[in-house]
């Protein structure tokens, strides 16, 4: 298979990526945590995070990215699924049906009064699965060039 070397002059891309990736990831976390009140949530947060990683993949190559993000994405998917399932099961211990969520307001240092919802735990599962799945697919397809 012919392979054209497109990475001859991507200094600008690489430098910009180094900065931008952090911004995207921070933004995706913001989306994830604020999902209960404003647009966002596990699904979008996860997609944006994987978008950031995809950007890394485009700017650098698979090996470099894998070197500083040594994540097994299949395990990530499994962890996410387990978390989502366990939050569902957790409600059994409070005599509530499967996947019942609850919330309350708590005073936290620095943040002030914050609402904490168990749904966020479930959302964390979704977040992890979305990243895991997208990155598994992209990585497996990308690796077999």
């Amino acid at each position, binding site marked *: *298979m012919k*392979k054209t070397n497109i990475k001859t002059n991507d200094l600008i891309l690489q430098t910009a990526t180094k900065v931008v990736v952090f911004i995207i990831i921070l933004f995706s976390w913001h*989306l994830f945590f604020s*999902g*209960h*009140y*404003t*647009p*966002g*949530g*596990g*699904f*979008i947060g996860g*997609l*944006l995070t*994987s*978008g950031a990683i*995809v950007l890394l*993949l*485009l700017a650098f190559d698979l090996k470099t990215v894998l070197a500083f993000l040594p994540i097994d994405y*299949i395990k990530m*998917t*499994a962890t*996410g*699924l387990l978390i*989502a*399932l366990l939050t*569902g099961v957790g409600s*059994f*211990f409070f*005599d*509530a*049906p*499967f*996947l019942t*969520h609850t*919330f309350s307001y708590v005073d936290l240092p620095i943040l002030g009064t914050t*609402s904490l*919802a168990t*749904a966020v735990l*479930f*959302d964390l*599962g*979704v977040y992890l*699965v*979305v990243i*895991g*799945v*997208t990155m*598994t*697919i*992209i990585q*497996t*397809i*990308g690796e*077999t*060039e």
Partner: protein
Amino acid sequence: MTLLHVAILSPFIIAILVPFLHNYFQKIHTGWFILPLPILLFVYFLSLISSTMNGETIRNTASWIPSLGINFTAYIDGLGLLFALLITGIGALVILYSIYYLSKVKEQLNTFYVYLLLFMGAMLGVVLSDNLIVLYTFWELTSLSSFLLIGYWYEREKSRYGAQKSMMITIFGGLLMLGGFIMLYMMTNTFSIREIIEQVPTIAQHHLFIPALILILFGAFTKSAQFPFYIWLPDAMEAPTPVSAYLHSATMVKAGIYLVARFSPVFAGTPEWFWIVSAFGIFTMFWGSFNAIKQTDLKGILAFSTVSQLGMIMSMLGVGSAAIALDSIDDSYYTVAILAAMFHLMNHATFKGSLFMIVGIIDHETGTRDIRKLGGLMGLMPITFTISIIGAFSMAGLPPFNGFLSKEMFFSSMIRIVELNIFNLESLGLLFPIVAWVGSIFTFIYSMVLVFKTFTGKYQPEKLEKKPHEAPIGMLISPIILASLVIVFFFFPNLLAYTIIEPAMASIIPAVLGDGEHFHVHISPWHGFTLELYMTIGVVALGILGYFTLRKWSGIYRFIPERLTINKGYDAALYSLDKSSFHLTRFYMTGSIRNYLLYIFTFFIVILGTSLAVKGGFSFSLEGNASVGIYEVILAGVILIGTITSLFAKSRLTSIIALGSVGYTVSLFFVLFRAPDLALTQLSVETVSVALFLLCFYHLPEFKKPEKKLNFNWPNFIISLGVGTIVSLLALSANSQRVSETISTYFIENSYKLAGGKNMVNVILVDFRGFDTLFEITVLGIASLGIFGMIRLQVRKEEER
């Protein structure tokens, strides 16, 4: 959640820990970590005896899917407790035995114990659930864990074959049983067994009553290896011996017995129930014992013997059900059958469990289970020999062992059936005692074969793979305990009478009892010179004769042609199924994605289009729609251009970018209509998928214009036109028909009140429709594994070449 729920779920919780225990404490056999669990559970269940003895029941509900009437209701009565004690008691002994049986160096212990715990929890769930759907879930989980355990040595062809066979047959029955459960629900509107029993008088005349009865019996018969479904049990013997001792003699196969007992209050009293249960039971008893004799594998003999004994218990349950049919007769006359069934259930678990463990020891110490190679081991393995004498004599029904007592009661119940004048028993009743008696003679013979062919006769060390010697003490503890129970139950049978057996009887045939009454249970080792005793003497005499002349008459087995056995039928059915589905699949799975899309779209048009047309679903009304703004027109134009470009693009890159522009424009629409969540999602999805497309470029062949111009394809044209039309019509009709208030008001009102979230979309995803999301991410995960497997496996194949 109550302690009872925790008890049922505890094996699953421990199962999660097993891999960690196995990895971090390599020097300690994993079994030692598991052993405390069944012991604790056993003690816990023992502590409940005092309440079930007084006829009390415990029923605790944890809601699961309350809207569908599916709740995790743990329920303990006499019957459930008897089984729970069996499961945990035998479970503890089997795990202790397995610690010495399975080498910690050679075997994958973590998987073994995970499967075993899975099984134990599932089995507890089956016998302690009041909700039919929960019961069914656990029921299939026992099939599944049994499949994994039988296939434990998966590199052996026979293990895989046996595992598949047991799975096919038991799950087939389980699915039919589910059908029966649903019919019960349709009749009674509840999934709770308790509540169904309360409605029995009203449902007995329902037209679904008999179909439900038959379907549920399918489940019971496949699980309990009744004729003709027993064929999976001998093949299941490929499992490690602790598994055979546990699943295939003491617990799982008895789930069918449990089911029949559990549903006796519902169905018993009808002639169908009586005849099916008792006739299949008694025939299985005869057939199993008859076939056991021709086996040469020790475990094969035990497997057929289990089939036979399960048939025996089943027939007693059937006969006992006659007690419910008639009020006028003396009840104690027929309740003896139920008493015998429960008593024999316990006895069978003790002697068969010990015999399986003995066979495991012989296999372990000599390297073979083939009866033709064994012999003369008596002097070398004295303790093993003693235990097997106890087990086998009990199985043959000889005193002073517990099998004698329950077999005498079996005879009594079979004799008394002759006097019954319902269900056509006047003419056919005599068959029962005769078949039972003949079957018992065969039982006697194979029990003798089992002991004496192994331990007496000529010692042939040259045929054995190892030099035999007595087993290590750890391996002997469990069979010794079981064998001593065999004797204890003979001399003190009333230890069990009112503590365990009577409460179980009360839950099988509650209709016979009045308020506060108890069954009269008296089991005595000596019951005088009765017809039963003469029958036993006959069994022994003819049995001894049969054993010594075995060589002369064993030729009759050759008269049963090998071609006509049920096993052959099963294999042939499986083969033809395989073959015909292969042909069928090859017919439509052409490998061309165009064909697949054609099928999908044709079905789409036919099913959706016709059903909408028939139901009058199409309608158009633009009433209440907002006017179309300038932005929307522009965006629609962009989408149109993008679509057309992607169709007629000369290069792949153009096509993908055009497609991307369609996606981005759609997200602009979302922005316009104030759905920022959707817009964000659409944008990210579009970005990631365009990146994915770019990656896929490497794999796709060169983009070529087809050399010859494609002919205009009428069918394709019609189908694409049809799909487009139907989708547009569907969208228009969906918008035009406002039958009820939109569901969004509910979410607007409740999302903050009930879930504390202001973002409705997110609240719907995680809260109101969390179950959907859970399944969606599961599907995503499976899809990614599929892609991973497809690409990785392909790469590996290329490397191998």
